[in-house]
């Protein structure tokens, strides 16, 4: 495999990891605060549709992004109401949100655009354009480092860089600020946080809100950057792969990035080598590659590669003592 193939593979790994990473960090905030979220998929899907639709109608990708975040936040609010305010089952709420998004996006898309549940193709300012980083011309001819910089690091959309920045930001917020300490505490022992005079309900709503914003960006990326428009069910299980990555990363930001890069690489490689033998391995069925992230996560959960322990109060509604 020559350098160019390798760099192209890396390039598409970055592109495909980005939505996973954003959704994974979204789940990280929610679950660290004690709210299970299996509705990542639905929030991304809703955001993908509304960002695509508004970007097409307005011609501005930024308005699209805002609309996507808004749609995702609205579903987050439903999840918060169900699981925080009314202390309902968080898993069932997540399932409902996934279906709600899967159904509503197609129903609304059909009504607005009449193209069988998709938005029209986006072009120009309605999409995120690739950004060429400075000094590509000067560094481009340097052997090895030049092509790495030009092909691999430069030339992605804004959201790819944003997602990369979100990792240290999430780490700092969660592990180096008072807010982060409280957020993690509310996922481990909400009664203690309550005793300290801090509102469990408010903290959890904030966490669910952050989750909504990140899922919104992830969904907008799918429709306005990775592809040119919304198509039915375009998340294609990415929300669940992100969930798998979150477990794989043991609910930590930097490992989350690594897990998402791994799963993104698996997807990139299965696209790159579809129908041809892999270098050094031979033919691999494409279905095997599709199942691999899930298989790896189950093996991890089985305790063969370390042990994944979720935040202690995750999934449990908090009832204040009277």
């Amino acid at each position, binding site marked *: 495999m020559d350098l160019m193939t390798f760099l192209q593979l890396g390039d598409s790994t970055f592109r495909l990891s980005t939505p996973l990473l954003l959704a994974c960090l979204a789940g990280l905030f929610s679950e660290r605060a004690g709210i*299970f979220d*299996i509705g990542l998929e639905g929030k991304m899907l809703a955001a993908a549709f509304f960002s695509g639709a508004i970007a097409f109608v307005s011609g501005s990708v930024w308005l699209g992004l805002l609309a996507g975040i808004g749609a995702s936040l609205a579903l987050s609010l*439903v999840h918060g*109401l*169900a*699981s925080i305010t*009314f*202390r*309902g*089952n*968080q*898993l*069932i*709420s997540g*399932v*409902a*949100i*996934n*279906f*709600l998004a*899967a*159904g*509503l996006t*197609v*129903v*609304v898309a*059909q*009504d607005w655009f009449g193209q069988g*549940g998709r938005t029209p193709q986006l072009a120009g300012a309605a999409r995120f354009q690739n950004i060429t980083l400075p000094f590509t011309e000067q560094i481009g001819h340097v052997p090895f480092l030049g092509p790495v910089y030009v092909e691999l690091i430069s030339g992605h959309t804004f959201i790819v860089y944003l997602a990369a920045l979100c990792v240290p930001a999430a780490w700092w917020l969660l592990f180096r600020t008072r807010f982060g300490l409280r957020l993690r505490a509310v996922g481990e022992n909400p009664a203690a946080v309550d005793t300290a005079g801090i509102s469990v309900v408010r903290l959890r709503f904030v966490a669910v809100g952050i989750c909504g914003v990140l899922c919104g960006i992830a969904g907008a990326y799918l429709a306005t950057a990775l592809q040119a428009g919304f198509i039915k069910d375009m998340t294609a*299980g990415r929300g*669940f792969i992100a*969930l*798998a990555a979150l*477990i794989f990363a043991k609910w930590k930001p930097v490992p989350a990035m690594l897990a998402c890069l791994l799963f993104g690489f698996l997807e990139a490689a299965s696209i790159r080598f579809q129908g041809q033998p892999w270098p050094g391995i031979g033919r691999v*069925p494409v*279905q*095997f590659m*599709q*199942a691999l992230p*899930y*298989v790896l*996560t*189950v093996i991890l*959960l*089985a*305790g063969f590669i370390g042990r*994944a322990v*979720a935040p202690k109060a995750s999934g449990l509604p908090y009832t204040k003592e009277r």
Partner: protein
Amino acid sequence: MQKMPAWADVVLIPLISLLLAAILSGLVILAIGENPWEALKLMISGSVGSSYAWGYTLYYATNFIFTGLAVAIAFHSRMFNIGGEGQAMLGGLGVAYVCLFIPWPHWSLALIGATAASALFGAAWAALPAYLQARRGSHIVITTIMFNFIAAAFLNYLLVNVLKPMGAMDPATAKFPAPTHLPSLHDILGAFGIPFSKAAPANVALLVAILACVGVWLLVWRTRLGYEIRAFGHSESAAKYAGISPTRIIMLSMLISGGLAGMMAINNVMGEAERLVLNSTEGAGFIGIAVALMGRSHPLGVFLAAILFGILYQGGAELALWTNIPREMIVVIQALVILFTGALDNMVRMPLEKLFLAIRRGQSATTAGE
């Protein structure tokens, strides 16, 4: 003191939740420029208006009874089996193997064999997540979700590369041989002189589904194992104290659950398609969640909720055919039902409890005054 009479819990709350879901669905239909009242009429005439319509409604309902019972039995041991979809896919594989490779003399024997195989394959697919939950503490919801995706990839691989007959284009098995074809409701009712549509896919699997309802009721409320499952579901620590093994209960309830989900395949694979196709389950595994929630995990409730969802499915297909309301509207309704009957249960329950308490206080005040 009990806050609410039992009938309110069993009947009133699901009905109010259903009404809320229906109102919101109506608003969605209104928003896309259609008339909700006309849509409702069309749905009802399209799903129960003729024996043809009933044939489809009952066919869908049969699927949902199996997956609904699967989710319900797991709910009793407080397990959330979200993997009905994958287990039903594997059940289909079991049915395909049994029908294709065993020369059955008669459909009745084939049905017994296929039922056993589908239950076995479905249970096997639930076994590993159950084991991981029981012994390794890994969350059953996460593992069963993962197993749904693994099942889809596995089946896709088998159909494309292994089971597809030579020269065929679409990824599906060969047609099952004629002796395995199940009698439809047309054949069964015809034997009693009752006319029924010949074109509809409802078949003898409906009777198996009803038997399964009775079986689950007997199991949960009339056997020692059922008692242990319910005790475990109410309080794990109390059950442990009473000498009930958590591992055993988790494994058994999940195996039964997976088996029931797998048995759906005798309806959709053996009864209708008569071969195994890609995505044969069409999301029925997930609808089982809505059905179990609506039916309050009771077999009779599951049966009624499954009929309701059968009506929704068949009616929704009619809507898509005759109006501008796409088929996905059913998914929206299904989501709203899950949301209101499952996640937002307390939103309906808490005001009702207050109301009943207020009524009761009023009554005791008047009796005290006399």
